């Protein structure tokens, strides 16, 4: 610890060169994406451009051009989560390294698409400078005071990183963590504790509005710009829902590719460790706010697979769905199964022997973080406090140090390896669990006088429904359907050319039948893009 401070002080090198922050910069990331895409099973394309004019990459892992039920993985939505980006790339690489028989079998019936970094602008900005922001390159007036970026981040002690700033105050809300005096936690007032610090982000109040660095060089956080429960007029949310091209590009991708059956988001939410709960009242409101009963059972099933797969990572932290986030929007507004996980978290199994009494006010998560930093010797994550003279707080004791936010959800890259392997296992299982339709051979009964009955039975042999129940309500989602094309001279005595059916649950089956008059060939198409379609020629 001391060593790197000395190095830092002596040579004044930028922070990244010294701390354990080893994420690839944007150019390196692009190169990685390019390298992975040289595999013949990968088609690399772009789903659109960011506000900053960067291509948003899409990596399609698929065998052939015929569309198959597809699992879409999305990462890098909130710019403060590069770990998700790296893990999505790790998953891509590890899928390609699967034994070829297993990989072939998987890709015969399913495809896996990956948008490794939706918010390319944020990745680019955060990987090169001081910046640590969620948003894209949109120029916004974050505090809505009519001045643009007038109160940016300010590296007061010139150590190349924005950390925390504490001000000694009698009865302040924060106190020192029992096992790391550089880490501040909320004092538990209801347990008679009292604190001695106010805690802020390192910075200044340039525009004297009482807020520190509240309007800097950050744009719209895409994970607050989606349409479900959109939070208008809040910081980083944009002018209106889906105001950002990146947001629209992702929703367009889902609607334009009806074969996308489920979306897995590596982001700062988690509905996998704990499944979506069914709430009767919320599910029946006009604006639905709970997964349906049937869909929440699917969520429970997927959670089970997930928790089994990632067990070695220990208990995952609870991360609530924020307003206007991707994951809820994908379920409620695009009608797809939608799952989210940070894909890495501070392990709960770290050695905690030296921290027995510290069920502190920072809660379990704070303890975990402190323990992890210590046991793994994560340099640069918690900095020692150093006094500064601060113009906004004259005659007060102001110190810079404490938590460096970027380490909260983003460990040194080497630590992602293990979690990405477990997540690759989960991704493969999830893809295999998607609905799969099998069709009986059509049964044709000649009723005489050129009248034929056609019967086809469809089975869902997958472990998930063809699509979530909610999708039956959403107009622009492709439904289970059958289409019979007749030839000239043939006509329907019963049934219609086009029929739509509700979703088919896992293990369910459905029989379709038609009465047709007239000899000759008819063409029958049955199925759904999210579970597979089949076209058969039937001779009558």
């Amino acid at each position: 610890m001391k060593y790197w401070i000395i190095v830092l002080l002596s040579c004044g090198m930028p922070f990244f060169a010294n701390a354990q922050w080893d994420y690839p910069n944007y150019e390196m990331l692009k190169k990685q994406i390019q390298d992975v895409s040289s595999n013949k099973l990968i088609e690399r394309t772009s789903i659109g451009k960011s506000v900053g004019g960067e291509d948003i990459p899409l990596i399609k892992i698929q065998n052939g051009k015929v569309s198959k039920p597809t699992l879409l993985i999305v990462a890098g939505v909130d710019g403060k989560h590069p770990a998700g980006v790296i893990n999505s790339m790790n998953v891509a690489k590890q899928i390609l390294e699967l034994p070829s028989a297993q990989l072939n079998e998987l890709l015969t019936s399913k495809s896996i698409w990956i948008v490794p970094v939706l918010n390319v602008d944020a990745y680019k900005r955060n990987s090169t400078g001081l910046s640590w922001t969620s948003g894209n390159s949109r120029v916004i007036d974050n505090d809505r005071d009519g001045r643009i970026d007038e109160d940016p981040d300010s590296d007061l002690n010139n150590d190349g990183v924005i950390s925390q700033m504490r001000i000694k105050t009698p009865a302040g809300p924060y106190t020192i963590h029992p096992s790391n005096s550089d880490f501040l936690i909320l004092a538990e007032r209801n347990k008679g504790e009292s604190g001695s610090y106010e805690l802020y982000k390192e910075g200044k109040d340039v525009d004297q509005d009482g807020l520190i660095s509240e309007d800097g060089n950050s744009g719209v956080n895409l994970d607050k710009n989606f349409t479900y429960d959109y939070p208008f007029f809040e910081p980083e949310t944009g002018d209106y829902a889906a105001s950002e091209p990146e947001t629209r590009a992702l929703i367009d991708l889902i609607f334009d590719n009806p074969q996308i059956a489920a979306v897995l988001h590596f982001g700062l939410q988690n509905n996998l460790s704990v499944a979506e709960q069914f709430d009767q009242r919320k599910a029946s409101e006009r604006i639905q706010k709970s997964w349906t009963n049937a869909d929440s059972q699917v969520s429970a099933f997927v959670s089970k697979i997930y928790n089994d797969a990632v067990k070695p990572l220990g208990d995952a932290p609870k991360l609530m769905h924020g307003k206007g986030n991707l994951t809820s929007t994908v379920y409620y507004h695009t009608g797809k199964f939608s799952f989210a996980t940070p894909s890495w978290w501070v392990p709960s199994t770290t050695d905690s022997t030296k921290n027995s009494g510290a069920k502190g006010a920072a809660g379990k998560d704070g303890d975990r973080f402190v323990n992890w930093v210590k046991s793994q010797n994560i340099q640069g994550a918690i900095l020692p406090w150093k006094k500064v003279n601060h113009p906004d707080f004259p005659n007060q004791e102001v110190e810079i140090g404490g938590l460096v936010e970027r380490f909260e959800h983003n460990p040194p890259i080497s630590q992602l390896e293990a979690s990405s392997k477990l997540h690759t296992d989960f991704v493969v299982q999830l893809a295999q669990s998607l609905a799969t339709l099998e069709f009986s051979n059509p049964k044709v009964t000649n009723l005489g006088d050129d009248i034929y009955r056609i019967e086809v039975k469809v089975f869902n042999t997958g472990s998930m429904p063809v699509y979530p129940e909610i999708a039956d309500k959403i107009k622009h989602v492709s439904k289970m359907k059958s289409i019979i094309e007749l030839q000239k001279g043939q006509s329907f005595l019963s049934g219609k050319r086009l029929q739509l059916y509700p979703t088919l649950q896992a293990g369910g089956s459905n029989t379709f039948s038609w009465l047709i008059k007239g000899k000759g060939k008819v063409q029958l198409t049955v199925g759904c893009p999210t579970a597979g379609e089949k076209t058969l020629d039937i001779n009558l």
Partner: protein
Amino acid sequence: MRLTYKILSLALALSVTAAFGQKKNEEVSKEIAGLRAVGSPSNPKVQMNWSRYHDLKQMEQFYIDLQKAYPDLVKYESIGKSYEGRDIYVLTVTNFKEGKADRKPAMWIDGNIHANELQGSEISMYTAWYLVENFNTVPFIKELLKDKVFYIAPTINPDSREYFIYNPNTMHSSRTGRRPFDNDGDGLVAEDLYDDLDGDGEIVMMRRKSKTGRYKVDPENPNRMLMVKPGEVGEYEMLGFEGIDNDGDGLVNEDITGTYDPNRDWGWNWQPNYVQGGALYYPGTLPETQAVKKFIYSHPNIAGAQSYHNYGGMILRGPGAADDERFYSRKDVQVYDALGKTGEKMLPGYDYIVIHKDLYTVFGGEIDFLALTRGIFTFSNELMTTYKLFNEKSDGGLRNSDEYYEFDKLLMFGDAYVPWKEFDHPQYGKIEIGGAKKNYTRNHPGFLLMEDAHRNAAFTIYHAYHMPKLEVMESSIKPLGGNLYEVNATIWNTRIVPTHSDHDVKNKIERPNHIRLEGAQVVTGMQVINSDFNETLEQKYQPQQIEVPTIDGMSAVKVRWIVKGNPNAAKVVIDSPKGGYLEYNLKDSSNKS
């Protein structure tokens, strides 16, 4: 003789001057008192017939002609392209010679978002035409175009307007745009459209003789179908609008182009289509919506807005959803009421009402976008009402009203309906086709169109007039001893609409008004809350520019600076996003304070 000569030469000189003067006047306009019907130009530079509808080519010609005739008052531009690549035009109407157009408080007017609702375009066009053709004759209009600017978008759904006019449609169809979607989920797009079975250019109703049908012909008027009473045997069943089952799915006309609603595509409280029918993927799925949004955001001077729809005779304000009532404070509602209630008087037969309470719930509508996302005082008028037919409220509601039939008989002489005639239908067999033409019931009959155009234009002019107008009420310079001076300025808004709605202030939608002292060395600055008791609010950050969240209608704000040195040469700049821009020299204050 000498005298005569002098008089002659004087007369000659005078007549020459007069002739020059007259010639100059001719360039402006030629109004002969006895020919001018008050309120209307007798010899407009751009001759228009306001008793008809216009297609896009005719509309563009109108923009070109108007700009050519009044280059200092009109500028037209394309603000973006429609789905099918047509330009969406906006006319900017103001006196370009006085003040900067984009710094004047602006009135946004759009029409025809629902393309079958044609007349919003004509009324918008009439507004532009009326303003410029009366600029030189009516001092009120001259003053208005000095202070304010109008942004007028006659159609924000051009593809569908053209489609409505030239393709098979009913009075209700082509409400949507032209982006095709697979409405029935069969993987095909727009494969079952209306069919003009008899090729007469009108899509009307189909009926079939049937004992179990519940309709009969009105003995008084053969165009009209009446519902039979309970227990009475009917003569006909109604089979919907003219069409056949083109795709063999047992449904007729079920996959017409775009059953979406462009007025559910906006970024306030947007909801998906199972909550709000007509919605698409997200707000702004349509290029037309994106183009308008872009224009609105790049013109923060827009303080008032008017959208035109049909029908029913309504002056609507938001919110579209009950949930959003909380965003309409009493103060904002008072502003709406002041305008809306005057509107009721100007528009006989129109009621001033609230969308979600008195019409129906709308999520993701344009009105809410303008009013709540942007904080603009916005109305939406539902044009045309049965009241206009005989200048009285109809009884029995729309469905049972026979006024449309009677109006047709007495005033349209049968032009509004296609008489029933027989037709062999491939699926239904022997049927009859007939009914109201697409331009009847919702769109105005010709002679009523101009009247309503003027009344609605007048309402928007009234609205525009009452958008904020800021003036310096008084100012003073007071020596404080030493080299210090106190500068006071009182700025007031002489109109009804505040510079920022309450909703705007609460959510900081638009930046505050800036009242700046330029050319003086400011020591400190403050807003004076109560000058009688010297209650002030000091502004520590950048005190030379006092930030005032709003200046209410018919109200004043007072600001004060303490400056070093005599500020005689300084000026006060009033810089309000929606209230305009004004510079005021302090030395002019001598006669004011």
